[in-house]
């Protein structure tokens, strides 16, 4: 069974095969190969062309179509998961065509469906059937794909059609020039993948005259190592577009591929008015006389209506090819059932965390963030670059990020990742012993210890910690405007322990109870919960108009506090939030500042400061300690050895 969730699911030969089928669409229509088959269209986002052309294609193949007029009004609105919808609808149809507003949602459904699933657009991720239509159009009009120069214009960041297309053009050896609207450049992961999978290289342009042309920003030059040239300019604004055109006058342009501003997908709204457009001037230019103008439609105002009557404006033709190409694709997928896996996908080492906590995709619109139940975190793991940075790529949405910390599951040890550990990581991955963490804090929450640490030095002993807690409690009470509104919120788990002790002190001073809660930064699920009073009838923790004291053991980069503030403000608007920490070790990366500090200590980036409290992890006494965490380059030997304790 074959699904099509990304253009990478198809090899070039298979794409050619689909195109040959499309060439003979009339024959397909006569043969009716889909007689008796049913296609279900599940569209969670509006669509006209894609949906109608799919439905038309299926009917012309002799099959029938079932669909929901609006998925948002279906059982999805009642909270049915993507996984369940996929399982259920698999029993009703022989192929599913899905469009969804989350990145990676179609991939997640394909995992749970028993029939082929076709991606008709997933969030800002990919739209592979549009790409097939685009390639087919270019091939029909120009006779070939290799060596063509295609200019991609406009919103290259949010346009999913662009992401699929750019990979496909690269695979067929076309040159790609990009003219991105300001702030809408190709995402880094797309560029990374071009470099890694298709051997296109990215280098900054040094030429003085280009930097003079491109104002206030950087220019990028993307070129395949062999055999063709490709230029990628970003952040080009309208004023300078003309000069840029002159500069690149030596290039022959085969097609302009325009896109619409993806307003609905933008976190940022309308950019500052410099969206590239194609107007009547374009038509008059001699060097564009054979340049096709393509557009996935719908268009807004980026194409002049004069272009509609011109032979070069082929976007309606492009839309018309949607039916034969989709007929060909359906026929292709039906012929491949059952039991055939995609060969187009590159075999990569895949990674799922063996621990309860693990790395999370950082794309906020990824299906793994939106509906974890349908899409458990899953990644491809590989190294890139000369220094061997270890990269995780989300299996659903393709977003990539660096691995910071790794752990060895049997020995419960962690360390920062370093390229010297490459072989070790490979071995651990093979044996299923590799844990990956987004932060040290996450590792420690799971009970991991550093692999080997330098000599420990005590920063605070039991007495100092006790008097710091007392002093901070006194200050909290001094600054408190209204004890009725006071809420102590500990950051799990050492912060919670401290918060409990402070609550006891404050209660003793006030002669009354105070409310105590816990905030969980790395968990999934209940981020905020009440600890005291522990009456379950009290309902959820109310943050509105409270004076919150956020309590953690150590402040370092400040990112934990930043995350805590996000969680707090998602749940309610407090009157104030003050921050109490036992140790401030400096090295802030976000602008947060504690109000109450037990002790400030200088530390180096490699140092690790830990607060150990009685009762947690079988500690016998309270202490704050500092040590240097393992230097992996030096200790790689000992790590790869049989260090199993």
């Amino acid at each position, binding site marked *: 069974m074959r699904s099509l969730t990304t253009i990478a699911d198809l090899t070039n030969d298979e794409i050619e095969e689909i195109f040959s089928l499309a060439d003979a669409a009339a024959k397909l229509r006569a043969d009716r190969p889909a007689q008796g088959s049913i296609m279900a269209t599940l569209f969670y986002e509006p669509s006209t062309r894609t949906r109608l052309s799919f439905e038309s294609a299926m009917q012309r193949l002799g099959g029938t179509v079932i669909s929901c007029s609006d998925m948002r009004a279906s059982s999805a609105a009642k909270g049915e998961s993507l996984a369940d919808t996929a399982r259920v609808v698999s029993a009703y149809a022989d192929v599913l065509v899905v469009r969804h507003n989350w990145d990676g949602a179609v991939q997640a459904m394909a995992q749970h469906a028993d029939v082929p699933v076709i991606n008709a657009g997933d969030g800002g991720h990919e739209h592979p059937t549009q790409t097939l239509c685009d390639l087919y159009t270019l091939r029909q009009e120009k006779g070939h794909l290799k060596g063509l120069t295609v200019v991609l214009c406009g919103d290259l*960041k949010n346009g999913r059609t662009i992401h699929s297309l750019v990979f496909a053009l690269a695979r067929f050896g076309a040159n790609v020039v990009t003219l991105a609207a*300001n*702030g*809408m*450049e190709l995402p*880094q992961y797309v560029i990374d993948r071009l470099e890694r999978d298709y051997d296109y290289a990215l280098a900054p342009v040094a030429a003085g005259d280009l930097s003079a042309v491109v*104002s*206030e*920003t*950087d220019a990028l030059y993307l070129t395949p190592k062999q055999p063709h040239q490709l230029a990628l300019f970003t*952040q080009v604004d309208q004023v300078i577009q003309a000069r840029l055109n002159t500069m690149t006058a030596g290039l022959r342009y085969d097609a302009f591929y325009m896109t619409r501003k993806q307003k609905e997908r*933008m*976190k*940022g*709204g*309308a*950019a*500052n008015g410099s969206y590239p457009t194609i107007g009547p001037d374009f038509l008059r230019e001699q060097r564009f006389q054979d340049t096709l103008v393509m557009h996935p439609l719908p268009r807004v105002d980026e194409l002049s209506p004069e272009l509609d009557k011109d032979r070069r404006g082929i976007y309606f033709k492009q839309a018309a090819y949607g039916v034969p190409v989709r007929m060909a694709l359906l026929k292709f997928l039906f012929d491949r059932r059952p039991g055939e896996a995609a060969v187009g996908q590159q075999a990569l080492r895949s990674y799922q965390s063996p621990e309860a906590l693990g790395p999370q995709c*950082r794309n*906020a619109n990824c299906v793994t963030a939106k509906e974890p139940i349908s899409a458990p975190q899953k990644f491809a793991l590989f190294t890139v670059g000369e220094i061997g940075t270890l990269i995780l790529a989300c299996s659903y949405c393709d977003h990539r*990020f660096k691995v910071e910390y790794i752990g060895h599951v049997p020995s419960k040890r962690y360390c920062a990742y370093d390229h010297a550990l490459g072989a070790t990581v490979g071995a651990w991955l093979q044996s299923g012993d590799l844990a990956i963490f987004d932060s040290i804090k996450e590792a420690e929450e799971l009970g991991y210890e550093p692999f080997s640490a330098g000599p420990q030095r005590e920063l605070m002993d039991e007495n100092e910690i006790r008097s710091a807690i007392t002093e901070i409690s006194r200050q909290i009470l001094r600054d408190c405007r209204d004890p009725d509104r006071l809420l102590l919120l500990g950051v799990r788990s050492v912060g919670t322990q401290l918060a409990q002790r402070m609550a006891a002190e404050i209660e003793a001073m006030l002669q009354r109870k105070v409310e105590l809660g816990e905030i969980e930064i790395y968990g999934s699920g209940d981020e905020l919960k009440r600890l005291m009073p522990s009456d379950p009838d009290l309902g959820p923790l109310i943050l509105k108009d409270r004076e919150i004291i*956020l309590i953690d053991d150590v402040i370092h980069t400040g990112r934990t*506090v*930043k995350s805590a*503030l*996000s969680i707090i*403000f*998602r749940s309610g*608007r407090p*009157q*104030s*939030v*003050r*921050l109490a920490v036992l140790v401030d070790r400096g090295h802030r*990366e*976000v*602008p*947060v*500042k*504690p*109000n109450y500090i037990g002790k400030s200590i200088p530390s180096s980036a490699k140092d690790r400061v830990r607060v150990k409290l009685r009762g947690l992890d079988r500690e016998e006494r309270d202490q704050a300690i500092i040590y240097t965490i393992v230097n992996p380059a030096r200790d790689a030997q000992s790590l790869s050895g049989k260090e199993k304790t």
Partner: protein
Amino acid sequence: MAEERTVLLGPDEVGRTIKRMAHEVLERSASPNDLVLIGIRSRGVHLARRLARRIRESADIDVPVGVVDVTPYRDDRTEARQAAPVGAFETPVAVDEKMIVLIDDVIFRGRTIRAALEAVEGLGRPKRILVAALIDRGARELPIRADIIGRNIDAGDDQRVNVSLQEADGLDQVTVADWPSRHRS
């Protein structure tokens, strides 16, 4: 009752302060090519552009300037939590692995900066985020700090600090006035 206004900074002082802040921004950035300025609408944007100009003059570096409107992220608007924030970034910029300087005219309760941090997070993961403000009037309600400050002011809750800038108001000036017995902004 006539409003009592005290001029805290005149045109020359504003200019000098911005110049000094630009130097501080440069000093704080280990690699100036990773620097990105993000102005908070609306006076923060004018300040950001001026800082960028100063940086270009003194270090010959073109620093990208982004514009953020935090209104949809503000926690004091109840609808903010219901709808997904749209239109926060008028000029999105690449932030991954960059050193971001968030710029506003006045930092006070810290709520605007918190909202801006949220908006920046939506764009990616910067290496570091700093906050620069022409005026820090203290009295924070959130544990947020300003790293680069033009001038610290100890203004009471009943006072209003007003920053005028050439671009918006035709004049560079910072004044403080009594806020006629209203609850705080």
